[in-house]
């Protein structure tokens, strides 16, 4: 017990040290003169950025609290006025996120996602390999319509119960490893597909809107889907090679799925209603979310209101299932992005980077991808995108070959490539708790998956976004 106490004490000492280092860094920026080419406000914004990076990586406080600290520190150190900071929080992407969480809450409450997942898996029970591909597709598809971490939490018990029925031994069964990693990676890749999958997508849309670039739901999909479509089979193949599946027969899996489908019974009234609302919302998002029509946020809130009108969700459910902390995180992240741009800090860092990288456009694109992937693996995805997006926009303003949209898409999508560590993304942490794969397995597969996905996004950025679409 004493030992435990010691550990707790050392843990809080570590927290205190992290906080001290973070604020000391900010203090250094506060007292030191700004270098030439950057305003003092811009210099202070870089200090706040570094403070946020330290706090997001070491997490001595919840990452959402770091989000509102970013907002608080801007007026405190004199980097921006309070009105300016809170003005940028009022972006419609924040309401899009709230709406998405309410709709996802209704889907979760009535178990619609479970039914979709089981139906999906039922179609891939021909062979063990096909089954793992089915898991990956189910994870990705569900991450198009609800937040990825919710999908991971849903699929974990379903797939674990199937693995147990098949007597797949945790840590020893390659089939178990591939199945679990297929959930984690499928969710991460799927979350790139639509603005719903990850808060970082909404963040990118929000920051771009502040730059006067508005992206609709369909436009987002037009940019992101090639990455998803290429990454899913590539990653699935890597998993097959990294962990050759030892199982030959999936009849136990079939029986377990049939059992679970049987337990669910036929579709209930609320499931039909939620499906209909989801379909209507999706149609509105696809056809009417462009700026000249309704916009993403209005459609999301309309869908949420429909759920209340039909009695499919109550306010109590919203309180249970909407993580308000992410709104604060989002708010902090967007004010950071706006502040970095308006003070010229993003351009200044970008200028320094370009001096080092030279004028090779391919090298600049590769650097953006590499920095984002490295950062997103050691801190929150939203934090990584919030940190690098203003710099990427700075790169776009300094470098004629790269548009703000291209730079933002590179960072936003690379921000989803968190495959290496348990701490990289909630989907990794949730699936790790199954006990079916080790941190080494994650590192082994994640390293290759990261490199391949970086190559995919590089190819898509150069050939499709820049070459074919001309963005």
């Amino acid at each position, binding site marked *: 017990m004493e*030992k*435990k106490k010691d550990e707790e004490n050392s843990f809080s000492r570590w927290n205190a040290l992290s906080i001290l280092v973070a604020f000391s860094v900010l203090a250094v920026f506060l007292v030191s003169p700004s270098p030439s080419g950057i305003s003092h406000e811009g210099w202070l914004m870089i200090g706040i950025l570094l403070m946020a990076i330290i706090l997001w990586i070491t*997490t001595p406080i*919840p*990452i*959402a609290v770091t989000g509102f600290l970013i907002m608080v520190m801007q007026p405190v150190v004199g980097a921006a006025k309070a009105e300016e900071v809170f003005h940028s929080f009022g972006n419609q992407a924040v309401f899009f996120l709230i709406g998405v969480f309410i709709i996802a809450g209704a889907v*979760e409450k009535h178990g619609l996602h479970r039914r979709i997942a089981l139906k999906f898996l039922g179609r891939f029970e021909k062979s063990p390999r096909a089954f793992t591909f089915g898991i990956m597709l189910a994870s990705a598809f569900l991450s198009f319509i609800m*937040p990825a*971490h*919710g999908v991971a*939490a849903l699929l*974990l*018990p379903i797939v*674990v*119960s199937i693995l*147990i*029925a098949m*007597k797949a*031994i*945790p*840590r*020893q069964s390659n089939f178990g490893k591939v199945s679990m990693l297929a959930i984690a990676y499928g969710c991460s890749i799927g979350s790139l597909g639509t603005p719903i999958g990850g*808060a970082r997508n909404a963040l990118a849309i929000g920051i771009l809107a502040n730059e006067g670039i508005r992206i609709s739901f369909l436009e987002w999909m037009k940019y992101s889907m090639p990455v998803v479509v290429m990454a899913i089979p590539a990653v699935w193949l890597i998993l097959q090679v990294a962990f050759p599946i030892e199982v030959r027969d999936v009849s136990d899996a079939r029986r377990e799925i049939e059992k679970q489908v049987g337990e669910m019974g036929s579709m209930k009234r609320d499931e039909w209603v939620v499906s209909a609302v989801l379909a209507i919302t999706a149609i509105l998002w696809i056809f009417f979310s462009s700026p000249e029509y309704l916009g993403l946020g209005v459609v999301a809130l309309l869908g949420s209101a429909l759920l209340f009108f039909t009695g499919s969700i109550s306010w109590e459910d919203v309180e*249970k*299932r*909407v*993580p308000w*902390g*992410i709104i604060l*995180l989002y708010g902090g992240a967007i004010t950071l992005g706006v502040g970095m741009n308006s003070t010229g800090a993003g351009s200044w860092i970008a200028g320094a980077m370009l001096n080092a990288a030279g004028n090779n456009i391919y090298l600049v694109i590769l650097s953006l991808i590499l920095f984002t992937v490295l950062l997103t693996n050691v801190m*929150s995805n939203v934090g990584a995108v919030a940190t690098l997006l203003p710099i990427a926009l700075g790169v776009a303003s300094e470098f004629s070959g790269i548009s703000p949209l291209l730079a933002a898409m590179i960072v936003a999508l690379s921000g989803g490539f968190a495959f290496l560590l*348990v*701490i990289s*993304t*909630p989907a*990794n*942490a*949730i699936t*790790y*708790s*199954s*006990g079916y794969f*080790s*941190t*080494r*397995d*994650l*590192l082994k597969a994640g390293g290759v998956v990261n490199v391949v996905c970086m190559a995919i996004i590089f190819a898509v950025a150069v050939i499709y976004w820049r070459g074919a679409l001309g963005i």
Partner: protein
Amino acid sequence: MKMFENILLPISSEFYPRNAMERSVFLAEKFGSRIKIIYIIEEKTLEKADKITDVYRTHYEKEETEVEIEHEYLSAADRIIFDDAKEFFEKRGIDFQRKVVKGQFSDAIREEMEREHYDLVLMGFEKGCLLHYRIIDNSYAPIWIESAEKGREIILAVCSNLAPNLKVPEMGEKLSKSLGWELHMIYIVDMQDNVAVDGQGQRSGRKSESELIDAGKEFIREMGKKGIDVKMVKGSIEKETIRAAREVGAGLVIVGREQKRTGIMGIYAKTVRKRLVEKCNYSILLTN
């Protein structure tokens, strides 16, 4: 009295070392031991998942997931681990009990050892997991860490200037006789920490190399009287142990309570035992 009358076999929800269960069958058959399996639902893993999903999921959702994960752990314990135990033990008429607890691996083992007396803790070890294995440094009973790699029927007993060298030779001899395995013994003079440790575990002041070698020779003479050949080697205890284990193809390496201090600050290298477990590909028996 039997050498290992009561064996504790802790299995964490973090990972299931099936080879440790197979080894417990072997030992139980040799020594007529009773086995108790405790399945530990790792709070640490659940907490980690909780912390990382913190801002993304509500308290209610996290609780929902935790309940589901716990349910799956119990299901895995019942349908895989305890099923295996029945298969392994019941068929051979080995007396075994099972228990499920929720907590942290080392704490759960220590609490179980406070409740009942055990002669041996038998477990697996995995580097790629969240467990700290603090129990390795503070267990009253010997800990047998079964490796996935099978060595030959050879025991390597490791003595050095940094340990009392009482239990290791004794355990080596007894096991060699009971199991019929060949016994090899080495004495390592570790000059990275040039002190001698006495029978009570007290460290001496700094000694010269020749003094430490003389002490080693004295130990070798004592062992010679019992008919045991000991090879003296000079170097770091970790490296020399691993090298010797590889050379003889040891199926089991016995290590005592080495008290090595390293670095300019003279800080205890608490991880000597843990580092050995991490680096050595053979099964290790840690005595106290």
